[in-house]
């Protein structure tokens, strides 16, 4: 819907500008000058704001991440038919939004975390096209517990868990990683060994 609104806005903007270029006499009148101001300043700025918002929201989607060839195996790993695999379990049971699956776990839950995540993504993009080969994708920094605790931190299952309580402070301070006990994860190097969930569309 938002996309359609932007396209209509662009079409109107192009039409108005073409009208003014083809009829320059319009600029001689006050109403013409107002029309010029709207079509050369207001509408283009609105278009930039709306399209940037749209692109920013699109860039959080699973579809966006998996459009890079190099990320396809990671997308496939979300369909591993084994509930011990953390990303697959979260994805298939809708514990994270399936539409924003990658971003939900791989953003940084801080004040400017989303922006930082996008800047890191920009770095990946340039590295992919201009930086040489991508053979072994690794996280730049160890996975921070903060990203898990953003959802699990307030859950009863976590707070009252007998295993979690003795090490709660360590978990909160990121001194002991959640991944120390929980896993495995994407396992993209051995995908051919797995069976995969075949999602049935609702009829």
């Amino acid at each position, binding site marked *: 819907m938002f*996309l359609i609104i932007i*396209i209509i806005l662009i079409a109107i*903007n192009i039409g108005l*500008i*073409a009208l003014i270029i083809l009829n320059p006499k319009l600029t001689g009148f006050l109403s013409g000058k107002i029309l010029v101001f709207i079509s*050369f300043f207001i509408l283009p700025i609105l*278009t930039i704001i709306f*399209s940037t918002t749209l692109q920013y929201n699109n860039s959080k989607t699973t579809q*966006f991440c998996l459009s890079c060839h190099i990320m396809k195996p990671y997308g496939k790993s979300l369909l591993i038919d084994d509930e011990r695999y953390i990303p697959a379990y979260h994805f298939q049971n809708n514990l994270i939004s399936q539409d924003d699956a990658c971003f939900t776990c791989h953003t940084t839950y801080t004040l400017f975390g989303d922006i930082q995540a996008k800047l890191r993504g920009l770095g990946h993009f340039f590295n992919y096209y201009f930086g040489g080969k991508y053979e072994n994708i690794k996280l730049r920094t160890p996975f921070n517990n903060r990203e898990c605790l953003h959802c699990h931190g307030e859950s009863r299952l976590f707070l009252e868990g007998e295993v979690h309580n003795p090490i709660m402070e360590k978990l909160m301070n990121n001194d002991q990683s959640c991944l120390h006990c929980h896993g495995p994860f994407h396992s993209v190097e051995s995908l051919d060994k797995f069976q995969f969930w075949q999602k049935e569309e609702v009829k």
Partner: protein
Amino acid sequence: MKLQSIFKNKLKIAGIAIIIGLVIKIFTIIFIQPLTFLIDLGISSLIIAIGIVIYLISFFSSQSSA
């Protein structure tokens, strides 16, 4: 009279720049990919912004001369 002509020429250049930027934008917002994301923000929006700046320069220069 000459001033008016310069204003109209600059307006034409600004208009063409904005139209080019908007046309590129239509193609980039349809696809959800990193490449189109960058073309949209880095090229299309930049061309539109250049068009807006040309318009503003021509507008203020014509106002100050008048």
